[in-house]
């Protein structure tokens, strides 16, 4: 019996060696280990699967497997009218639904050659910036939680709630807001909207400082984030990475300044940048962005012009034959819509250029040679939303 077992074993070993001979590079070296992370994993922020090739604690290679949340949004668009597709875009980056709606509405407006009235532009800017803060707060809380700090999560979610309350009062929804319509906004601001927004700004300004007291000089935070996941400016540009990740690498580029849309050209704000392009700099950039967003909101809420909130749009939208690409600075980077019209009521093709999808591509470059624990930090710092990656 023992002999049979032995011979069985040796045969399989021989087969294994024979099989490996055929391959130029053996899939598994004695020192290498394949570790599967996700799709069900708390710190992949959704259903992302990463296949890690490890040498001990060191990451040799990381491969992302995506598509678990693919719903075919672009296909749906071809089978809906321009108006009907509007709510679908909120379901892509569901933590920044307002930005998605803004990008889509502006793209179609460009195609129709109309413009939203000034009052709508102002309200759009205020809500989008509020959403940027909400998105960054959610990112900060979960990112810190991934790394091991629990407290920031409670702080940021407590304050994000106030933004969601404003959204709820404005349009009835908290997350997938569908706040904007093609040609303006559906709803006039409610009584006390300005006061609510101002009160929120006063409330949250010291809170942002509070987040910083927890993390900016925290020794554990510094150890875990400084020099982790470094991405140089040149690599960012080559890989098409945008948003805070690009700015943390020292490239001063923001679509709100470079190609202003909505009402941004009327307000003063700065583009915060970093130098090292590591996880810590990206944290600083996003925190600074929250402050800049507050600055924009304060200026905007004081100067909302009078007038209609909805422009004149045809009842049946039939944009002329043509195609248009319009992009905005979403909280995660450049969010673009490429809309092709064939003159009918339904778009011929809608292509969404999602920032998360393109940014996620940089992951394998960022984690090469890093430790396993850093992978979690890097996924967090990229600020991806899988609803947008997979669409």
């Amino acid at each position: 019996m023992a002999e049979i077992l032995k011979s069985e074993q040796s045969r399989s070993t021989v087969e294994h060696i024979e099989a490996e001979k055929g391959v130029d590079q053996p899939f598994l070296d004695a020192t290498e280990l394949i570790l599967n992370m996700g799709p069900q994993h708390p710190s992949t922020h959704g259903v992302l699967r990463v296949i890690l090739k490890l040498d001990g604690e060191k990451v040799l290679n990381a491969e992302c497997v995506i598509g678990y949340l693919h719903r075919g949004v672009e296909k749906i668009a071809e089978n809906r009218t321009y108006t009907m597709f509007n709510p679908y875009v909120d379901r892509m980056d569901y933590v920044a639904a307002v930005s998605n709606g803004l990008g889509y509405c502006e793209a179609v407006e460009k195609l129709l050659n109309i413009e939203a009235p000034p009052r709508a532009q102002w309200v759009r800017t205020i809500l989008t910036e509020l959403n940027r803060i909400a998105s960054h707060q959610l990112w900060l809380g979960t990112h810190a939680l991934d790394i091991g700090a629990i407290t920031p999560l409670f702080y940021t979610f407590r304050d994000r709630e106030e933004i969601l309350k404003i959204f709820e009062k404005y349009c009835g929804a908290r997350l997938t807001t569908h706040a904007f319509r093609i040609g303006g906004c559906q709803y006039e601001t409610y009584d006390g909207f300005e006061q609510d927004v101002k009160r929120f700004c006063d409330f949250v300004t010291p809170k942002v400082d509070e987040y910083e007291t927890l993390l900016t000089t925290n020794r554990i935070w510094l150890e875990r984030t400084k020099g982790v996941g470094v991405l140089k400016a040149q690599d960012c540009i080559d890989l098409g990475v945008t948003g805070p990740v690009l700015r943390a690498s020292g490239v001063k580029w923001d679509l709100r300044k470079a190609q202003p849309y909505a009402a941004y050209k009327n307000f003063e704000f700065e583009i915060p940048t970093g130098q090292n392009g590591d996880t810590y700099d990206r944290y600083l950039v996003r925190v600074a962005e929250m402050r800049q967003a507050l600055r924009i909101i304060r200026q905007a809420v004081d100067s909302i012009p009078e007038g209609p909130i909805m422009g004149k749009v045809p009842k049946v939208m039939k944009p002329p034959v043509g195609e248009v690409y319009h992009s905005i600075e979403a909280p995660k980077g450049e969010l673009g819509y490429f809309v092709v019209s064939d003159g009918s009521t339904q778009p011929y093709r809608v292509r969404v250029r999602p920032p998360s999808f393109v940014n996620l591509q940089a992951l394998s470059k960022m984690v090469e040679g890093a430790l396993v624990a850093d992978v979690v930090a890097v996924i967090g710092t990229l600020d991806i939303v899988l609803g947008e990656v997979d669409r």
Partner: protein
Amino acid sequence: MVTRLRKRYGSGIDPKTYVGQNYIIADASIVFELLQVMRDEEQFDYCVDITAVHYPQRKDQEFDIVWILYSFPHNERVRVKAMIKDGDPVPSVVAIWGAANWLERECYDMFGIRFEGHPDLRRILLPDGWQGFPLRKEYGITQQDSEWVRINLGIESGQ
């Protein structure tokens, strides 16, 4: 820029503008060279997006391949468009812009366009064994690879 490119490619390119947005319709045969020139000489250093549009009724030019480019130094955006026949390969631009890798994979996944020279051209959003390319016009909105669903999920239909 247009005059420079005109001098080089003559009638191979056709620059156009629509609602203030510039795009160049280029011949499929010169498109790779053109894109290389766009990056190296015209400083379009950021490849924003690569996508396709399907026009089944256009004979021998079923697909529009669209490269959306942006130049950081000039703060300018341009689209390069090439019309290709169904089944014809398109040169891959991964060697020019690293960002093209996943974008081309998605384009292959959704339209079945083969990018020649791509280091790892396989499906990205759909499962590897899936049959059909969903963003082609003949693919119905509720259509799916029911065989794949039956084998891998053990159900008759996902709808």
